[in-house]
């Protein structure tokens, strides 16, 4: 549809921001979601069994993937928006040139 480059740049910048400010908290939120789920499935107090740990790690992975995706998507959408605006601005003079012919 359009060049992917602006959205890739946007997503890249957003991911860098994610790594800088949001990686650790999203690991914690995800891990805590895992802890709560594990509590429901295996009962509290949680014993650090393999399955419990696996579920918490799963939560961490999803937390990171989820918040990371949110950053990436917002960044890509912003990039695509900027890309669309600049290409529009670039195209306008060309259209004006073309009209008198």
């Amino acid at each position: 549809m359009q060049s992917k480059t602006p959205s890739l740049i946007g997503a890249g910048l957003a991911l860098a921001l994610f790594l800088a400010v949001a990686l650790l908290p999203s690991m914690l939120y995800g891990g805590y979601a895992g802890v709560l789920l594990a509590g429901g499935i295996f009962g509290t107090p949680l014993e650090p069994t393999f399955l419990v740990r696996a579920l918490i790690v799963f939560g961490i992975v999803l937390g990171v993937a989820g918040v990371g995706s949110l950053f990436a998507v917002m960044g890509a959408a912003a990039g695509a928006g900027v890309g669309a605006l600049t290409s529009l601005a670039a195209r306008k003079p060309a259209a004006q040139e073309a009209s008198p012919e």
Partner: protein
Amino acid sequence: MRAILLSFALLLASTARADEPKLPKGSDTCLQCHSPGGDGPAVPPDTFAKSIHAQNGVGCTDCHAGYTEEHAMGGTLPALSDAEQKFVSRLEKASWVEGEKKVKVASPRAYLACQNCHTEQTDAFAASVHSKWLREDAKVAGPTCASCHGSPHAVQAMAFYEPKAGARQPVPEDRRAMAKRCEACHGNEEFAKEAGLNPEAAVTYHDSIHGRLVRVGNAYAPVCVSCHAAPANRGGTHAIVSKIDPNSIVNVKNRKDACARCHAGATDSFASLIAHKTPQETTGHPVPHIIHIVFSYLTTLTLLFFAFHVLVDFIYELRQRVKAKAGHGPSVDAVRSVIRFDIHQRIQHWFMLSGVILLGITGWPLRGAGTFGNAPIIGGRDAAPYSEAFMKIFGGAEGAALWHRVGAVLIIISSVYHLFYLTFLAAQKRLPLSMLPGPKDALDMRDNILFMLGVKKERPRFDRYMYLEKFDYWAVFWGIVMMVGTGFIFWFPAFFAAWAPSWLITAALIIHGEEATLAILFLFVVHFYNVHLKPSIFPMNWAWLNGRISVEMMKHEHPLEYERMSDDHK
């Protein structure tokens, strides 16, 4: 000599800074030896001078009655009555563990003096559960005045705090500081067990809705004394008694009065929503338990399955990339497009997505702000400071709560719009029955996964909505019913508690949190992957903006629909 030098120095200091707070009469004699560096245990003169006692002219000997320089040379102190002696020897025996070290009362006699000037408080305290250890032998030493107020040499005036439902009041800083002191005992597992108290009192409070609100910076959510202090005219915090005592403000019979300090119209059933227990245990009813377990399984299994689906899809996409031939220019079909979603559908989706993102980013930081305790892997860490920092974007915790409600309104608008839209379509007999799930979807799902894994050669041929899209749609349908339904209960808790049983409300609280986990993780991971981050689609499937799908994509993703449309055109 040293004493003279010291007093000289003090004199110089006080003339040099005339506006410095003055010490009460007689105190300087004592401070000759009791200033830092003196012979006796130090009482920091600056701190004391600024304390409310020194400011009101209460001097050393007003509390340390009968003390003269003599005591340093083994002089005797005034004799005590039997009752006083008993009180003092209980204080002498007492010790507490603070961190690693044991602490004892440094000057037990001084506590006899408080009642001379603070009768109201000492009387209330003398009848409270906290002074039981001073009336009879106990396994552990409970609090003295200093356990809550800190050193009597540094005491400051307590801020006025009497929250009313109509005029909520931010919790003053001193009550927050005091909550830490309550927890030094009630949050200490060994101490609580020895005292026969609930060792979970502090943890369950922090994990409760109130505790988490406080942890993310809500200024109004209650600290310990907000609920536990008796009414001010009945002794306040000094009059705390056992919860089984009918005079206790948290006794089952009175509890609603504690809640009514902030929640207008609190009833007994509302009051039973919070009791230092996990939500599923609070009411003792089995339904919240079952719901907790069912939702834990539902969330875990759903997320496991879709994480697997995303992974398989991603590997498939990577393999396709490697295989893809270079120089494959855009075909006509890649440029031609057809309308897939009309403007109503797109508007519904815009409301939905902005609402859900807003709800997710304002709700999750609160949910994640519980205590991790010694949970595996994340134990000992704390996400609350991050939540608090993040919520500043929304103007703090109260602001985030407000935006959360804005998000709720957005998805409600979307849902109502959608229902009207469906009714309209139904009236025209144009209901899109293609959205209904059928047995073909299960087969498609199996075949698609096998195809992506490379086991099957042929991709299943999808109709207008493939199984992922149907799941997205129906999951939102279900999710909205769950989240809006339960969210509403917590928007107006006292109203619902007036007629709904408390286990139902507790169940709603559980569902709201656990369904949110499922919804947000599903949308941010699985849905975002399928419509944005999938390499062949990145940066996005533009249909949400322009409603269009390219003919090429349609042939590929929805061949059955494409063929039907081509047939219609023939």
